[in-house]
């Protein structure tokens, strides 16, 4: 179980996270939404150690992760994929997976053996299989399509067998068809792997269709949490987020 308690982070005078308290039950699927600048990515940065919180706690199964380095947090079981796919352009898909499993098995510093290690193979194969990358195993990451690079980024997090998987806008920059394919894969992944998935998403159709639980952030604060139905009818959310979208749609 992942819990965030009274988490705050400021940049100068701007409060990017303001006393955020949340909990994500084991095996849950939660969407985090909010207008641009609401603090969604900052929340992920704080949870994964990319940013150090000014105050508050991040508890994974009761162990405080606040202030720890990203490698430590990853080893405790929090994996992350990024809004802009962060991959290793010169490595093939297969090499990326094998090297990541090696890192997870604490074999990233092994000098006396040759890459790849036999014991890393099965997990690497499994992660590629789950995300449909097996057929592209020998392609270098730089030559993959945008969608496949996003999948590889998710596979990189997934191959570490995390307890909690944070996906920062997994469908960003994708066309409609590719977007739904990706979200189907995320949903399938959540169902199959039985892990806690938290994802940031801007597309409300996607959010309301697949997320059993939604968190709405605005100006670094939690505006609302609840089921999609409850969020849809929450006046504060309509005002701050959905309302804006509707106005925009009307204007178009």
């Amino acid at each position: 179980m992942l819990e965030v308690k009274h988490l705050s982070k400021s940049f100068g005078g701007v409060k990017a996270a303001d006393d955020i308290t949340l909990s994500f039950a084991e095996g849950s699927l939660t969407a985090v939404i909010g207008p641009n600048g609401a603090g969604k990515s900052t929340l992920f940065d704080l949870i994964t150690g990319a940013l150090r919180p000014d105050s508050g706690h991040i508890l994974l199964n009761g162990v405080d992760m606040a202030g720890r380095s990203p490698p430590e947090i990853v080893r405790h079981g929090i994996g992350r994929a990024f809004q802009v796919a962060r991959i290793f352009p010169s490595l093939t898909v297969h090499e990326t997976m094998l090297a990541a499993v090696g890192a997870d098995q604490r074999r990233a510093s092994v000098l006396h053996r040759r890459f790849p290690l036999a014991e890393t193979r099965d997990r690497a194969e499994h992660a590629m299989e789950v995300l449909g990358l097996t057929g592209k195993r020998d392609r270098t990451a730089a030559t993959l399509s945008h969608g496949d690079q996003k999948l590889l980024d998710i596979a990189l997090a997934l191959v570490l067998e995390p307890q909690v998987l944070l996906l920062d806008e997994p469908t960003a920059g994708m066309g409609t068809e590719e977007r739904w394919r990706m979200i189907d894969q995320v949903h399938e992944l959540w169902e199959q792997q039985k892990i806690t998935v938290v994802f940031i998403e801007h597309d409300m159709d996607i959010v309301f269709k697949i997320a059993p639980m939604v968190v709405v952030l605005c100006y670094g604060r939690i505006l609302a949490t609840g089921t999609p139905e409850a969020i849809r009818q929450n006046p504060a959310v309509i005002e701050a987020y959905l309302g804006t979208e509707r106005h925009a749609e009307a204007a178009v």
Partner: protein
Amino acid sequence: MTELQAERARERTMESSAVPRIETRSKRLRHVDVLIAVAAFAVLAALPFLFSSKALIDFVIRCAAFGLFATSLNLLVGYTGMISFGHGMFFGLGAYGFGLMMQRTGVPIPVAFIGTLLITTLVAAVIGAICVRLKEIYFAFVTLAFQMLIHSTILSWTSLTGGDQGLRGGIPRPVFLGIDLSNQMHLYIASCALLVGGLLLMRQIAQSPFGYTLRMIRDNASRASFIGIDVWRAKLTIFVLAALFASTGGIIMSLFVSGAYPEFAYWTISGEGIFINMLGGVTTFLGPMVGTVLLLILNDTVTRLTEYYGIVLGIVILFFAIGLRKGLMDFMVEWYEQRRDGAKERT
């Protein structure tokens, strides 16, 4: 079964039969490297018998010293993406450390060799711990600053280092295990053995899981930390390992010239290392070795023909940097791959 599921099932069936046995392939590749190394050593050892040229022997010894230095620099530049402008300090440290130990303590050569490597490890660990936290240009210039510090220390600590005159009086080279390094032939064979052994070890580093960790750091250090890699530790480790091979190059050089001179620790040595890597290429393991041979040939021929050595070198740098936009080995490998892919497409 949906189309997507069917596609996945097809891929699974294909891959299960296509994936080679990883462990077998890894072992086989290592054996190939060892065989190539043994063959290369045999060829190098046979050279003096085929061509009785003293100049050739001297040339190969210098190639061994600079080849180890340049290839170790490529572990930082090409494999990890850490461009060091101060790697030459470890070349100088190797030459001075070994020379001083032999002159002042009179220990056997293997002890002085190991002692020098231990000193290098300590110095590299301290300097590396400071430098590897820095990014790109800051890393490059802080390593350069440390090199200048070491060079200045050598110049000013005259009582120990001989100042700008270097270590004078020659380096004692007592016989050990029947090897007499004051004999040019023995020194030649020992240099070749150190070169081949060093290259083999560096090849192992490059092809190990750690070598792939370095590639990940080069490509995206931030992402590497998000899959659990301690980037700082990995960078420090390769910084120290690279320093050890550079130091070995310095030891060979000090044995060759029977002394050590401030120029060995001057920034121009680092510059030559970068230049060698540009000449030979950084994406292939043997690129720096090819670059070393090219630079030394250029050096020997151009200085004989004209006093304007710098101008000629500058033109050569421009040719590789602007003309080819890569090193010679990189260019050749790319050309070969394009031809191979073209032939595949045609068939």
